[in-house]
């Protein structure tokens, strides 16, 4: 399983792919960084990253399908899945290895973005609790998105379609929050409660304010696990009918 994980991580760096996506990631991050610095009106305010995370996540979320689109779709397309189907390794192991590999690449990109807090810390002071929780919430939310992306990649044999469907799923995730706040949903309290429970943005908001809540942590992790289990079921089901 570790071999597969290692190979998956490496595969992002064989081509310029990972570098380009990382560059895009940092570019987006730097833009919102500049934006929030420029909009600071008072010198008294301590600089916090919560807003940057909050704003930039709406861009980042769309980078994740680019990372996950190839995971299973590419294997189906190039007929390489027989390699791990005929090897002494189970499908859950394959799914976990691939998921962890994408998560690792994403983590590397996040480590690169530490550059901005460092710069800020050099010239001023950083609210550490808000920064750590911000990063943690950011990572947890992206885990959910990565799991969704991996699942969508297992549904098709075309990476481009996987990416497009992935983007659609990401839009849906973001849309859910706005939808929850509409008058229509809020007028029916029980429904609103269910929608609120599933809305990721509010939970992420708490993290980015520097508030760590165990319930939110479990929420993100459990959604990730559920989506990964679906992925395993999808692959197992497809295996029944492959030629």
């Amino acid at each position, binding site marked *: 399983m570790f071999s597969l994980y*290692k190979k998956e991580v490496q595969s992002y760096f064989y081509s310029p792919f990972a570098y380009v996506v990382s560059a895009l990631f940092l570019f987006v991050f730097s833009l919102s960084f500049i934006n929030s610095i420029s909009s600071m009106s008072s010198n008294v305010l301590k600089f916090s990253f919560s807003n940057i995370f909050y704003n930039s996540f709406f861009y980042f979320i769309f980078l994740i399908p680019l990372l996950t689109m190839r995971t299973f779709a590419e294997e189906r397309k190039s007929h390489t899945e*027989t390699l791990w189907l005929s090897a002494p390794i189970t499908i859950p192991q394959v799914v976990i290895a691939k998921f962890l590999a994408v998560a690792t690449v994403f983590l590397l990109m996040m480590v690169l973005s530490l550059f901005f807090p460092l710069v800020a810390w050099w010239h001023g002071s950083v609210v550490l609790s808000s920064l750590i929780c911000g990063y943690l919430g950011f990572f947890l939310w992206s885990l959910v998105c990565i799991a969704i992306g991996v699942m969508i990649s297992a549904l098709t044999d075309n990476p481009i379609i996987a990416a497009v469907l992935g983007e659609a799923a990401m839009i849906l995730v973001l849309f859910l929050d706005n939808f929850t706040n509409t008058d229509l949903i809020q007028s029916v309290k029980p429904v609103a409660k269910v929608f609120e429970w599933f809305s990721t943005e509010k939970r992420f908001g708490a993290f980015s304010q520097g508030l760590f809540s165990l319930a939110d942590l479990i929420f993100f992790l459990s959604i990730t696990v559920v989506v990964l289990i679906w992925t395993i079921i999808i692959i197992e089901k497809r295996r029944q009918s492959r030629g």
Partner: protein
Amino acid sequence: MVEIKNLTKYYGVHPAVQDISFTVGDHEVLGFLGPNGAGKSTTMNMITGCLPSTSGTVLVDGYDIAKDPMEVKRRIGYLPELPPVYPDMRVRDYLTFAAGLKGVPRAERKSQVNTAMERLRITDVQKRIIGNLSKGYRQRVGFAMALLGKPKFLILDEPTVGLDPTQVAEVRKLIRELSADHTIIFSTHILAEVTAVCERVVIINKGQIRAVDTITNLENSLTTEKILRLKIEGEITKITNIINSTKGVQEITSVEYESSGVNIFTVKVDADDVRKPLMAALLAGDCMVLEVTAVKSSLEDVFVKLTGSPTRKQSREDAFQELGREMDAAREADERKNKNGKEDA
């Protein structure tokens, strides 16, 4: 030992493989023969555990693929029809990764990869990116992958497809070499390959087994009557009379003109020993027998007989289709020419 019992696979309502049973003994080379779309790959995918069967069992060394997939997969090296190689990896990296995936202990990986590369003679391309290699080399990389983990059984799905004649010969030689310490099942739709490499054949068509036997048995069993070809100098009517009056001769199936006064007679006889009285009679009748050949039915005939030869109607339709395709191509070429002509003008 691989035991396959009543293996069946349905894709929806369409049966791909129906009720297949056969066994492969240790250190045997078994040819899996069938026309395209006969269910060869489906069967191999089921043996290797890539594809679950609808019903039936596959036992590898006593382990059931459905219950103990890990034990089975550890014993099998599988080379699918399209070698499962990652085009953006380097040969050595890929093989090391595959060795890890197959559970080869870390300490042994390097030496196993080296042995496999030497065996397939790809050591000199180990640093190259697989995507830039030719089809033959890619096939060899896939083959090397199948050898990793020292599997007892090798399952090769059409290992020679798309290779040039020298490479085909090399692969056949390799299969013969490997048969010393592996049990090999390999599929093909090329007959010469089976005769060159295997001891035993399984012939499959439309998802059903048509024959499981050794090559010699198959060749013998399917021809009850013998056919003799005789090149004789002399008058046709006289020779025909002599042949027809000899005991044991069934009929003369054809007479072909060879050169003036010499004709080739194809004669159906009961047994081989009719040759002697036939010769004696012909010599007594002053006919010069220039050549006698016993026509043996080859594996090719057996194969056609078992898998169903195309009917006259089918071949006529094929011919029409071929003609239609040619005409389409000609029309396209004309159109292109016209277009180019216009552009030039």
